């Protein structure tokens, strides 16, 4: 069982570097870009059809797929830098039970990813809402739709961060961890779909879209569970590898 002290310690690790601020800056840039697109962007025919209905606007502000990728990189860097900076030594000296130490670390990084997803979606919704008065359309996403978009982003952020942290712990190298996460979330899924077309509804990007309520390839619950599975598999592999290797 993970102690509260250990979890608080890991949360402080996540919060006491500039990395979350760097990712927050990325979220701000994405939100501003969305706002500008709403204000001045048009479809190919010059119309603003892409914001003309509540569903279109929910599609625009659905941030879960972005959260998955951004938090994935966040988790990968956070975990791999533990090895790069040798701070992992103190972690395992304090908690020689490695699965327990990793459990606390992944939980804290998952919380960090969830916050990134939540903040990213809130910023995007806010930017779009602020830009819509500059157009002929008002904000038409229902309250339930807003809640679903934010919740899906937070969950996707948590899942992406844990997935990245798992890969970072296995690879132990920041560059390799980032490459591995990009491979897992962007490059590999289309290849998997080509090999097995039935897997299309279950790749991370699709699951994030379904969880945001703008597609129905699977049920929302199944999408949420499947996103969790994408995170859990590398996390378990990381625990397995850490138990079999020297820390340093």
């Amino acid at each position: 069982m993970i102690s509260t002290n250990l979890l608080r310690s890991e949360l402080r690790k996540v919060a006491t570097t500039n990395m979350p601020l760097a990712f927050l800056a990325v979220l701000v840039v994405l939100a501003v870009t969305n706002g500008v697109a709403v204000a001045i962007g048009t479809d190919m025919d010059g119309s603003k059809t892409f914001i003309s209905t509540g569903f279109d606007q929910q599609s625009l502000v659905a941030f879960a797929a972005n959260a998955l990728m951004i938090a994935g990189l966040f988790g990968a860097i956070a975990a791999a830098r533990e090895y790069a900076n040798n701070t992992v030594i103190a972690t395992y000296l304090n908690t020689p039970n490695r699965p327990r130490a990793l459990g606390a670390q992944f939980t804290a990084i998952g919380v960090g990813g969830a916050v990134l997803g939540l903040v990213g979606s809130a910023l995007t919704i806010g930017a779009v809402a602020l830009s819509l008065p500059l157009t002929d359309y008002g904000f038409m996403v229902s309250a339930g739709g807003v809640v679903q978009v934010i919740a899906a982003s937070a969950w996707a952020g948590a899942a992406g961060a844990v997935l990245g942290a798992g890969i970072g712990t296995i690879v132990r190298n920041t560059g390799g961890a980032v490459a591995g996460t990009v491979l897992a979330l962007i490059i590999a899924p289309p290849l998997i779909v080509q090999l097995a077309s039935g897997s299309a509804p279950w790749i991370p990007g699709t699951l994030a879209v379904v969880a945001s309520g703008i597609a129905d390839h699977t049920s929302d619950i199944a999408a949420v569970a499947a996103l969790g599975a994408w995170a859990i598999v590398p996390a378990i592999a990381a625990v397995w590898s850490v138990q079999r290797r020297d820390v340093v």
Partner: protein
Amino acid sequence: MAFLPRPPTPPQFQLVFDNVTKRYGDHTVVDGLSFTVEPGRVTGFLGPNGSGKSTTMKMLLDLASADHGKTTIGGRRYRDLPDPAGTVGVVLEPNAFHPGRSGRNHLRILAQAVGQPTERVDETLAEVGLSPEAARRRVGTYSLGMKQRLSLAGALLVDPPVLVLDEPANGLDPQGIRELRDLLRGRAARGHTVLVSSHLLAEVQHLVDDIVVIDEGRLMTTGPIASLTQSAAVVRTPDAQRLSDHLIAAGADVESAASEALVVTGFDLDQIGEAAHSIGVVLHELSSQTDSLEELFLALTAHPPAQSPKESVLS
């Protein structure tokens, strides 16, 4: 008569390395290493670069697994200690910090993990001589000496009865080295176990009670530094010939150094003094002639110079 309760005896921990071997591929880094580190003493762990000191310490702390043999702290493996972080304070890597995190936050993370209050962080920072202003700065801006002080603060957070320190004096200024020496001697005096590796042999000679010397992963020697570095006794007496004959008959090796001086090996100072007293010889001097730790270290770890390819061709 009232009986006062005895103050509780602090727990003491012996460190045992029992036939420990570690291999990386075909390379044997630690080779059947056995020695013990006693509580109440400061033990110096010495060896050339790459001799396996750090790896041995990592095996003790369960950061690396032994291919053979075992290491224990008070009879238990590190991971089986009820409170490992509260039992062993460790300085292992000189740069085990996130460079973007402040020194104080680094310590707060460690303190939080082991349930220590924030006040303890400030106390420990003061103990190792890091000012509050320095503690607020990012570790990436620290000098090597400041990083060593921060590492030491991490090791002392819980006031552990065992200290395992790998090159803790690296980068410290003379005052810092003196403070470190006082700290470790004080710990040993309280019955704590202190294992410290260092390349600063002159400093180690003043600091440690026992030494363990390894080379290429194998034990070269271990024991009290006083006996390992004592090579001979110098005796000055007006009756040198009679004392010399008596000592030789008793089994000592004796050389005449000057008209009234003898150099005696094989007997310690007590034995020589008693032998002189037994035959009524007056002594004007009885002192030990000691090798420096550096001489001992170099003698134990000397390797024949490798023949360079050029020399091979020329020969």
